[in-house]
């Protein structure tokens, strides 16, 4: 009996550890929940059975059977409730999720990551319409000057100031890949040279930025930071205003491997709404919001109406493929009425998307960039793309 007890106790504890490792390591809420419930109940059950084998008496066996039965009944319920609540509450799916079988079957809300939530709440009444603030993530790529020009134009239109964030992604630059035996010295040297190179290039962009804002006569502030850009930017999202980033260049400033798609990378990590600048856009005459009929698109729309980054710009609304056009028209009418403005017609999908600014109101993180590519294949790429 003691042998059986030993086996059960160790096996149960090992399953508990595997489950906890899953909770720690798996990439999204739903996978973690699966690990916690599925393996948690098996681990606990085995440990309780191991206890019963160690002290085989009727009293203990009754309690253990009751306990295991209780776990078997409640844990699946708790897991199911959590998963349903998470889905309905709008907890983001992992960016690598291949299919969403519940899409359309359950109404999905939009749950922001709390760290981003406390910093910014688009469209909510608490986001008091204060001074419009432009936050600019400095880039040393060829688009750096366009970025600064756009930030200055926005700040001038609102009489606000430009806050620049000079960020070096030391996390990426310090990661030089697997180091062979005896290569530590060279790896350390490579790390410092990469980080110093990035700092040098960033210093040049900071100088150019200062020269440009001084010449334009716009008040400004600069903040220097080193670390993970997604975390830094998330904590500095403006309450009322817009975050501008370079659509192509990452914060390694050319000294590291870079990121293939910076806006996608940042959006997937909770940095939104943000505007990705890909070319010169001056003057901005027409902006198009791509509405997919979901609550998240509505939120993006009311955020956009409340912030109104380009006051003199004509805002057009267009329903994305697969969205219910009547529902989109209805929610657009309500959003504009709440601001006391005349709603525009919802555009047909066939019209060319010739706009300086394209705003994505899509809540499915994974498809944001995909949609933007599909809609832009027929025309020249839009200079400014906002992901909200």
């Amino acid at each position, binding site marked *: 009996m003691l042998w059986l007890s030993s086996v059960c*106790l160790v096996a149960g504890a090992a399953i*508990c550890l595997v489950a*906890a490792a899953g909770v720690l390591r798996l990439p999204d809420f739903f996978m973690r929940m699966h690990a916690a419930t599925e393996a948690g109940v098996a681990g606990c059950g085995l440990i309780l059975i191991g206890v019963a084998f160690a002290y085989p008496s009727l009293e203990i066996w009754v309690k253990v059977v009751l*306990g295991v039965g209780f*776990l078997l009944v409640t844990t699946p319920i708790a897991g199911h409730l*959590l998963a349903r*609540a998470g889905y309905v509450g709008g*907890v983001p799916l992992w960016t690598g999720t291949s299919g969403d079988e519940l899409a359309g079957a359950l109404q999905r*809300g939009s*749950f922001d990551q709390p760290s981003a939530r406390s910093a910014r709440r688009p469209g909510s009444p608490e986001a008091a319409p204060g001074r419009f603030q432009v936050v600019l993530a400095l880039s040393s790529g060829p688009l750096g000057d366009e970025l600064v020009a756009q930030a200055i134009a926005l700040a001038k239109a609102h009489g606000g100031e430009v806050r620049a964030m000079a960020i070096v992604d030391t996390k990426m630059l310090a990661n030089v890949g697997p180091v062979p035996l005896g290569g530590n010295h060279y790896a350390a040297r490579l790390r410092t040279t990469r980080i110093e190179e990035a700092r040098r290039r960033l210093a040049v962009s900071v100088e150019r930025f200062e020269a440009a804002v001084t010449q334009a006569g716009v008040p400004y502030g600069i903040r220097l930071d080193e670390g993970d850009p997604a975390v830094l930017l998330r904590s500095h999202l403006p309450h009322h205003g817009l975050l501008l980033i370079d659509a192509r260049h990452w914060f390694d400033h050319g000294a590291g491997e870079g990121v293939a798609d910076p806006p996608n990378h940042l959006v997937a990590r909770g940095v939104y709404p943000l505007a990705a600048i890909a070319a010169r856009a001056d003057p901005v005459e027409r902006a198009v919001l791509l509405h997919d009929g979901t609550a998240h698109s509505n939120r993006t729309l009311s955020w956009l109406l409340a912030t109104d980054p380009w006051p003199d710009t004509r805002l057009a609304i267009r329903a994305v493929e697969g969205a219910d056009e009547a529902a989109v028209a209805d929610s657009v009418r309500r959003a504009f009425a709440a601001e006391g403005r005349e709603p525009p017609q919802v555009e047909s999908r066939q019209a060319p998307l010739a706009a300086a600014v394209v705003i994505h109101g899509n809540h499915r993180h994974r498809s944001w960039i995909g949609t933007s590519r599909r809609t832009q294949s027929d025309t020249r790429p839009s200079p400014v793309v906002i992901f909200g």
Partner: protein
Amino acid sequence: MSAESVHQIAVALAALLVLAALVCAGIRIVRGPGGPDRVVALDMLSLLGVAATGLAVVVSGSAAFLDIALGVALVGFLTTVAFAAFIERGSINEEER
């Protein structure tokens, strides 16, 4: 080796494994990143509490700990259900609605 000494080693090993699991769940609670992730980690933590209390029965030899294990399982279930309701509303903070 006698069955008793193997059993003692097994209990110690199981306790270490559960401790490591508790640390993993604790790290997830600290890291987040969101409220729902922390609720899942808390659910895991309460299950591990049941496991630890079960081990306490063997270590102390007192069957009273089994009742505690049942109590911990019950409280953990109720907590998870309550938190699930909060998540479904989209926010844990009432004023943010």
